[in-house]
């Protein structure tokens, strides 16, 4: 966002120093490992894996499936999210914050959790088919979780929250006064929509599509649980890496996946740059109020979305407290003799994983801040030659599938302690959030303040300690919460980087979903949610739009 030369924003090489750790980190943890994978894809052993993947066959089918399904789900998610986002952005009503939090909560879920929720709802004995059977006496929708339709629903489940968050931010900035002016000049509702609404919102809609599309393209955990009869590219990557040790094919698939998401971001993204945030709100008195009916309908749709997103969680968590036969029995020997013993049992099983995840988050949060925040400061206040490129490079890894990164890391740095590799994996996906959050915060503060302080005799350190850090404190706290939420929920990279000895809690969730009975899985899910729910609430209170880039599903 350079360009305009403001006082206090000097070009020069001096800004490189605070960004140097980030540069080194990106080279070491992203560029080096991924170039290894890409090289394998392009050269291969006497053949071009890239050509093989693109020729007809299973790999191309998986890529086409991924593209079509992701595009369809993204389009549907954008369409479904417009009304809830509009209501959340523009209306004031009782329970609005609760509604927002309910819609945002799934952003922190890893894909395996989403997949499990889909099985709970749409499996062969899922809640929906069982209910339909009771009502109609016929077997309807049983097992649809495992079809492409089930995968579509799962994609919607993690895309709608992302889309609502992104669109809400855009709608907040929508200049309502333009609409009001057009209205007073006699423009009809249709004219206003076509001439003002759509042109102004189109960039936001496009970039929301790009974001949700990318989220689905890289989604692995969901497919791991659900895609049994239907293959998607990330699952083929996993097959090749884990089942057949075919790094060349996996690398080629990853390369194409990353290209698709980067292209979507390049061509469609960029519509939600935070500009003059809150302008729409300030002038809201000028904007025409929607009819009471439209307002109520909007709130109803938003509430329905929140209810649909929360129902699977509520039904799952209830399994820890219910003895209904629908949940099945505990198969681990002892019957459930109440809830406290159940939780003790679960903690006994997964306690070490819980500690490991906490410990990892504790290390990743400060490291992400130290890598991201100084660099973001340099990008905004002391741009240097190549700083925009570095900033783009810092955010780009969000488009790389976590499984690909994990294998690339193991291949190039397999000798390092696994906990260090896990931390590196988490940092790759959390540092961009810090760069973005701190960068946005700096954008909203007048850089002349620092110049003024310097001219009044404050030293560079004093400016940093007394002005910049205090001003950025909310953004730093927000960044820390975001990093925590992503690190706590990260599955895709952690799953492959984990060993039986070094295993995070989301990896344990996968194990518990597949090997333990429902009550145990439900209790483990609740334990996972306990720190996440307050973190989401706090993030939203601080206006954390970047939560929409939560852990890869």
């Amino acid at each position, binding site marked *: 966002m350079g360009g305009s030369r403001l006082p206090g924003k000097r070009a020069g090489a001096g800004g490189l120093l605070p960004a140097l750790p980030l540069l080194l980190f990106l080279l070491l943890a992203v560029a080096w490992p991924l170039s290894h994978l890409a090289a394998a894809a392009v050269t291969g052993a006497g053949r071009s894996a890239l050509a093989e993947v693109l020729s007809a*066959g*299973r790999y191309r*089918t*998986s890529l086409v*499936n991924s593209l079509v399904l992701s595009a369809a789900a993204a389009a549907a998610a954008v369409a479904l999210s417009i009304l809830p986002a509009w209501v959340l952005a523009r209306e004031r009503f009782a329970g609005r914050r609760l509604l927002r939090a309910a819609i945002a909560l799934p952003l922190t879920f890893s894909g395996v959790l989403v997949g499990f929720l889909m*099985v709970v709802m749409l499996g*062969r*004995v899922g809640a929906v088919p069982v209910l339909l059977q009771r009502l109609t006496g016929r*077997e309807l929708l049983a*097992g649809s979780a*495992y*079809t*492409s339709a089930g995968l579509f629903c799962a994609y919607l489940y993690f895309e709608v929250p992302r889309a609502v968050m992104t669109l809400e931010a855009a709608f907040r900035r929508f200049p309502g006064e333009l609409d009001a002016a057009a209205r007073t000049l006699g423009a009809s509702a249709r004219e206003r929509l076509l001439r003002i609404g759509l042109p102004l919102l189109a960039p936001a809609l496009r970039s929301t599509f790009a974001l949700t599309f990318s989220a689905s393209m890289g989604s692995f955990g969901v497919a*791991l649980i659900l895609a*049994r*009869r*239907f*293959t998607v590219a990330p699952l083929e990557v996993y097959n090749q890496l*884990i*089942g*057949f*040790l075919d790094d060349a094919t996996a690398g080629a698939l990853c390369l194409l996946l990353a290209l698709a998401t980067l292209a979507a971001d390049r061509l469609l993204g960029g519509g939600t740059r935070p500009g003059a945030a809150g302008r729409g709100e300030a002038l809201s008195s000028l904007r025409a109020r929607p009819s009471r009916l439209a307002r109520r309908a909007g709130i109803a749709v938003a509430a329905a979305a929140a209810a649909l997103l929360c129902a699977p969680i509520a039904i799952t968590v209830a399994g820890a407290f219910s003895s209904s036969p629908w949940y*099945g*029995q505990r*198969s*681990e*020997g002892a019957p459930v003799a109440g809830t406290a013993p159940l939780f003790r049992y679960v903690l006994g099983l997964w306690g*070490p994983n819980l*500690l*490991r995840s906490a*410990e990892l988050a*504790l*290390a990743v*949060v*400060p490291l992400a*801040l*130290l890598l991201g925040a100084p660099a973001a400061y340099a990008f905004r206040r002391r741009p240097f030659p190549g700083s925009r490129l570095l900033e783009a490079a810092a955010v780009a890894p969000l488009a790389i599938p976590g499984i690909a990164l994990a294998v690339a890391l*193991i291949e190039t740095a*397999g*000798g390092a302690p*696994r*906990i260090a590799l896990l931390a590196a994996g988490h940092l790759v996906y959390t540092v961009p959030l810090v760069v973005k959050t701190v960068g946005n915060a700096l954008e909203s503060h007048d850089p002349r303040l620092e110049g003024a302080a310097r001219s009044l005799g404050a030293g560079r350190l004093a400016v940093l*300690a*007394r002005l910049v*850090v*205090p001003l950025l*404190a909310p953004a*730093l*706290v927000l960044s820390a919460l975001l990093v925590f939420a992503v690190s706590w929920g990260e599955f895709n990279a952690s799953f492959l980087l984990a*060993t*039986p*000895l070094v*295993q995070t809690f989301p990896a344990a969730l*996968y*194990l518990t979903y*597949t*090997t*333990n*009975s*429902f009550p145990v899985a439900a209790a483990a899910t609740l334990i996972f949610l306990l720190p996440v729910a307050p973190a989401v609430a706090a993030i939203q209170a601080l206006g954390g739009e970047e939560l929409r880039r939560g852990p890869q599903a």
Partner: protein
Amino acid sequence: MNRSAAFLAAIALAFAAAPGATAVADSEQVVVQYDCIPNYANWGGVTALYKKVSGVTVPPDPKGSSVAMAALEREREHPVADCAYYSGAIGFQAAQKGLHQPYKPKGWEAIPAGLKDPGGLWWTVHTSTIALVVNTKALGGAPVPRSWQDLLNPVYKGKVAYDDPTWGGTSYTLVYGLNQLMGGSDADFKPGLAYLKKLDANVSSYPRESVYNAVLRGEIPIWINADGNGYKMKHVDGAPVEVVIPAEGSFTMPLVMGMAKGAPHPAETRRYFDWLLTREAQAEFAKAYFRPVVEGAMPPDIAARFLPARDYARARALDLAPMAAAADALKKAWLEEIRGSGR
């Protein structure tokens, strides 16, 4: 200023605390076993018992046989695992690939010849038979299938599952065995794949993880897997489950252990292997209806609950060497023919 100072202090504290916590967790005694699925062959119960008698932790691991082998191969330079558990052919293949180191545990002589590598690169810990594990309550009124042919009946549409054979060794044994049974050979996979292609119409999923609980809940009504898992559902968990050895025949399967080359905890692993052949451990496997490899370790009350011997007379043993040699090609073929069709 105070706020930011506190913040920086918190960061410093976190840095100091994190490595310390890791060190504590790493100091306990462990053996890392790839493919240690708690609900398969009672590994959960066996490892819990071992923890009790020795204090050594053997953490759970969800990999199937083939994935365990692939992980050992990938980690050749930097070994993570001490040992792995496989269905016979895959363990045989892993040994051939040079992923194992020899160790003959105490009680080695008790293992019948043919169920162990003469050099000690792998040895059988227990055996099992491929069977239909049927949750009768979840069949929705359909009769219990009795044969491979029965399974093709459209009344079972969406009700059948067998594990992805590129992942799990049990399912690889199934796919290899079916091909032999249907008249195929190591050079000709067509007969087996043709049957599986027809079966595909009824298959709901090719799981890569343990679906033990899914079968218990009725999420999967018919699971083609090891007989022992079905008996455990019926007798330990009290589920409405019936175990069927198909009329046309089935396959017995040795399940083997191998010590990983470069195992990080060699002494612990050897002690663990020694213990796995003790009567105590073998009886613990028998509690999950996997047949102990050590003669006489099967408790009589457990033995009485298996299907009668005439059913098991239909089960044939498969030769591990050709089965291992065919593994890569058959798995690829299955992936292309069955899974690759990807609806």
